[in-house]
């Protein structure tokens, strides 16, 4: 199915990542947005609210993030595509209902413009420390999909892709962007509507009395119905059978929870998107995502000038994690360098897949800023020169760390 031309603001723009994501949501057919203002995500909400109502979409500013995400799940069950937008503390508040959405197999999109943390943290500056929260934040077992765009153009493109995958696999999809990408202003090309593919909702079309809301198709994803069509839906966050009725035995729990994780895990190859560069004969591979991959480009360039064979692997989707790809690279790679704006999150998943075959170097950052590309280059050089096998993850000491912890760093009076 192609996008509705009414929803697509075709043209060439000079806009920031937040706004691009708002336009992407419109193009993807999002008809409802509920949010609560929070820096640095507000522009995306605003962009949607400005243009959405002109093409029949609805918005509401809720009383808090708990309400926002609950309204989004409600709106999805009324039959329309919906999303919410948040950051930091708001994202934490949404956790319970993300798990609720996963349990109900509700397709919705959540845009998280990550900021410095923890807690209120640094609202106006960047961070990448919600990555594990996006994967494990709600209680119980479930799988979802998370993207990490690196430019305003990708914010547009992957917002559409997020909606498409949400519908395809009936699960919440996270866009784990960050303040830098959200507030980065660049050229964004919005194509004609007929160039944009849209995944329609998998509505059930048979007789209502035979409908089983949680009976999966062969790809493990069930067909959906909406409120108001006479299906007498019984939808609950309790463990439920195919009819949706509560059950509480361990056999069924195993069957249902396994399907919730398997519908993503077994379809991984169709979901995962990676961008790989010069990894074939690389000694060192830089694994990065989001804004850190933009910075890493420069770091890789410097390292190459120093004569090191460096490849880059960019995680466009961070979850599900590309286990096989990393394991395959580990066989021929001396070391992995992972820059991220936190003190080690995705790097430990890299370590899990490398399984001791290569060294792993984390280039950490405490947030409220991005890496210095020279640090990434130095980390690459360090990894290239280190011949002995080091167990676990090596934390590289960056220039900023030396400055802060080894003197020389003074707060302005």
């Amino acid at each position: 199915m192609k996008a509705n031309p009414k929803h697509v603001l075709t043209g060439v723009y000079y806009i920031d990542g937040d706004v691009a994501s708002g336009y992407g949501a419109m193009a993807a057919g999002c008809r409802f947005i509920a949010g609560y203002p929070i820096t640095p995500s507000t522009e995306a909400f605003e962009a949607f609210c400005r243009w959405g109502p002109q093409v029949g979409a609805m918005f509401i500013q809720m009383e808090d993030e708990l309400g926002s995400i609950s309204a989004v799940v409600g709106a999805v069950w009324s039959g329309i595509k919906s999303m919410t937008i948040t950051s930091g503390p708001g994202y934490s508040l949404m956790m319970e209902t993300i798990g609720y959405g996963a349990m109900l197999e509700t397709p919705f999109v959540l845009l998280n413009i990550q900021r410095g943390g923890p807690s209120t943290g640094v609202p106006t500056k960047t961070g990448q420390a919600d990555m594990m929260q996006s994967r494990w934040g709600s209680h119980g077992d479930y799988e979802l999909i998370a993207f990490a765009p690196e430019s305003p153009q990708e914010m547009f493109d992957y917002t559409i892709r997020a909606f498409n995958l949400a519908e395809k696999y009936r699960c919440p999809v996270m866009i784990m962007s960050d303040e830098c990408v959200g507030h980065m202003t660049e050229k964004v090309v919005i194509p004609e509507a007929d160039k944009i593919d849209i995944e329609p909702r998998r509505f059930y079309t048979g007789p209502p009395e035979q409908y089983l809301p949680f009976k999966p198709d062969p790809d493990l994803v069930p067909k959906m119905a909406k409120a108001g069509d006479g299906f007498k839906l019984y939808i609950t966050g309790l463990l439920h059978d195919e009819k949706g009725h509560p059950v509480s035995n361990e056999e069924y729990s195993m069957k249902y929870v396994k399907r919730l994780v398997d519908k993503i895990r077994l379809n991984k190859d169709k979901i995962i998107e990676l961008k790989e560069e010069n990894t074939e004969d690389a000694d060192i591979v830089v694994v990065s995502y989001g804004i850190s991959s933009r910075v890493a480009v420069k770091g890789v360039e410097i390292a190459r000038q120093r004569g090191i064979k460096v490849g880059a692997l960019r995680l466009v989707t961070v979850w599900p994690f590309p286990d096989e790809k990393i394991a395959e690279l580990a066989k021929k790679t001396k070391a992995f360098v992972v820059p991220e704006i936190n003190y080690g999150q995705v790097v430990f998943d890299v370590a899990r897949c490398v399984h001791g075959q290569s060294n792993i170097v984390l280039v950490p950052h405490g947030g409220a800023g991005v890496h210095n590309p020279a640090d990434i280059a130095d980390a690459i050089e360090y990894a290239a020169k280190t011949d002995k096998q080091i167990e676990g993850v090596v934390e590289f000491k960056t220039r900023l760390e030396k400055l802060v912890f080894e003197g020389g760093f003074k707060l302005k009076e």
Partner: protein
Amino acid sequence: MNLITSIFNKGIETSGIERKRISIPSDIPFSPEVIEKLGVDYFHTARGRAIPFGTGLKLGNPDLRVMPVTGDLMTLGGNHFVHGVRRNMELLVICVNNFIYKKIDGKTAPSTANKFSPYSTFEEPFNFPHLGNSCGAVYTARWTALHAEELAASIAEAITKPGLAVIEIIAPGPNYYTDIDDIDENLLKFYFDNSIIKNDTNPREVGITPEDKIIVGRFTDKKRPTFIDVYNVQLGKTIGEKFTPYGVTQTEKKKSGGSDGGN
């Protein structure tokens, strides 16, 4: 089928609204049999989130009549309640008040008045009709589960109200998995002896205390533009001709009888 849901059934029947158009988001688990008999769509939400979930349903498809039935209304859902009332979202909020968290060994709730709690409580309870009324609810009423006729009529009346209506039901432990016979006869008699119908009482004066009789009846019935009404007026004003009014409000529905909201 238990007491309260049979009253819901009667209320829905009387209102004449097509059952498939009714959705019940609720943080209380109804039994599937009850929902089957009511013939509505049912969503068991996360605790306290029946009102925002209902808000999403209503805004997603304005043709639905949404009836959030809540247990954690004023605890987890307190903020959602006051804001839902303030923006006059078209919902019929049913607050089932049994004074305690019955299924969790009778922990006290923000509706607990001293006498009813097994261990007594020292906190002041909420007066729901007053709270709803003061935030701007278009309709408030309170009935006990014994006032079956009045309660059914009240539901039938409130479910068609354009705006947020609140009905508080004083119920003997809404344990939806037990049979009517399990309910303590003494408790039913207690409600019978200790309630008094006083329609149109100022909601300020209907707070429940251990000493006085429970005042039941319809307390508020007024008109206020709904969220969708004011949304359409404001956006129409600022956007102008490009704006197509969203959904179908109650008044328009009577004229046209249709909707493009969710189809």
